[in-house]
């Protein structure tokens, strides 16, 4: 009951401002919501809108996260000027990137394959069907002996093939899900919903990576490229299936028409952030103390 609230600004032309100490969202003179800064954890801006600098000030005081989305993708996040990361950790991260890249890459994909297996296995048991989950289990073992990042990525790609063909069998035919499509190519509602889910997951992982002081741009599995938060993409891998796919498969099977409702999708994609933060802390510790990294294993 006392959890803080996540608010979405989704109306075109909305104006988010401070009025009598409350953060207020106004659309064409109509107050959409008005909340005390103390009870907000995040403000997520989905549509073209205006936000007053006073809101930024208050958000900074109360530690409210402000994230801007464009087309299901988080594109910007407000980071306080006092944030500087931990320089020691950044240096360690560069050192780890030079000496232990493949170790981290392997663990991320090991976790990912395991969690994909858990998702398919759940439905296999529940309905006594075969979705080839054993292929994922096999790949999960194989990836542990890979000693190049390319090799690890190959196992991931192979796993994706089996995984999505399994998921396809679980999605009601009327949704027309033929397989996982990349961003931009996705036209069917289930793919669009996945993109929203991954967008929200990316927002959460991004916040966690920054708050533990890691450099989000230097990843182990994903290559570095200017402006790409490679480490965020790395850490996301282990959460995609248990946090996003599983929920969406559930919604699709229970009420297929809900998959087309972006309100339902967005509001369902609010995660147990504690798990994500714990994982980011584990990653930072592994880098800092030269320890083994253990991925998030779904149950």
């Amino acid at each position, binding site marked *: *009951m*006392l959890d803080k609230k*996540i*608010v979405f600004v989704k109306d075109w032309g909305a104006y988010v401002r401070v009025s009598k100490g409350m953060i207020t969202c106004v659309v064409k003179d109509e107050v959409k*919501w008005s909340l005390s800064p103390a009870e907000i954890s995040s403000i997520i801006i989905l549509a073209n809108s205006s936000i007053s600098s006073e809101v930024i000030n208050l958000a900074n005081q109360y530690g409210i996260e402000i994230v801007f989305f464009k087309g299901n993708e988080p594109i910007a996040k407000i980071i306080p000027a006092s944030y500087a990361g931990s320089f020691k950790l950044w240096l360690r991260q560069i050192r780890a990137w030079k000496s232990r890249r493949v170790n981290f890459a392997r663990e991320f994909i090991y976790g990912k394959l395991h969690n994909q297996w858990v998702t398919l296995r759940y439905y296999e048991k529940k309905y006594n069907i075969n979705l080839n989950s054993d292929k994922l289990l096999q790949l999960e073992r194989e990836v542990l002996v890979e000693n190049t990042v390319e090799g690890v990525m190959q196992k991931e790609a192979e796993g994706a093939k089996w995984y999505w063909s399994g998921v396809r069998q679980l999605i009601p035919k009327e949704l027309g899900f033929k397989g996982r499509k990349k961003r931009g190519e996705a036209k069917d509602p289930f793919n669009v919903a996945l993109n929203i889910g991954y967008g929200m997951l990316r927002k959460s992982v991004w916040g966690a990576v920054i708050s533990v002081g890691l450099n989000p741009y230097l990843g182990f599995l994903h290559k570095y490229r200017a402006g790409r938060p490679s480490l965020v993409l790395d850490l996301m891998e282990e959460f995609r299936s248990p946090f996003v796919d599983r929920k969406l498969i559930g919604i699709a099977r229970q009420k297929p028409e809900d998959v087309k409702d972006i309100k339902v999708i*967005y*509001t369902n994609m609010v995660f147990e952030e504690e798990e994500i933060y714990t994982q980011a802390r584990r990653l930072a510790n592994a880098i800092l103390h030269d320890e083994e990294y253990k991925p998030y294993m779904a149950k």
Partner: protein
Amino acid sequence: MLYVVFYDITDNELRNKVADFLKKKGMRRVQLSVFVGELNSSRLKDVEAGLRLIYRKSKPGDRFMILILPVTDTLFKQRIVIGGEYREEEGNVIW
């Protein structure tokens, strides 16, 4: 620490002032005249000071009583609710 604020105020205007003030400080309404919220010591002082200011405006003879009760999370979880809790806003996601 969680704090429960109970009030009993006869003057309508002051009562609304108190409710608005508590809302502004991030407390949540659980009954018409009961609010609950997580406060640290500086925010508690702030809430207390604000309520005292409103109290000064009350007229003699009017009933104006406010009780601020600290309660631990564990104890609060053991609360017994009969007939449902008052809620102004459902859920923690606002769309």
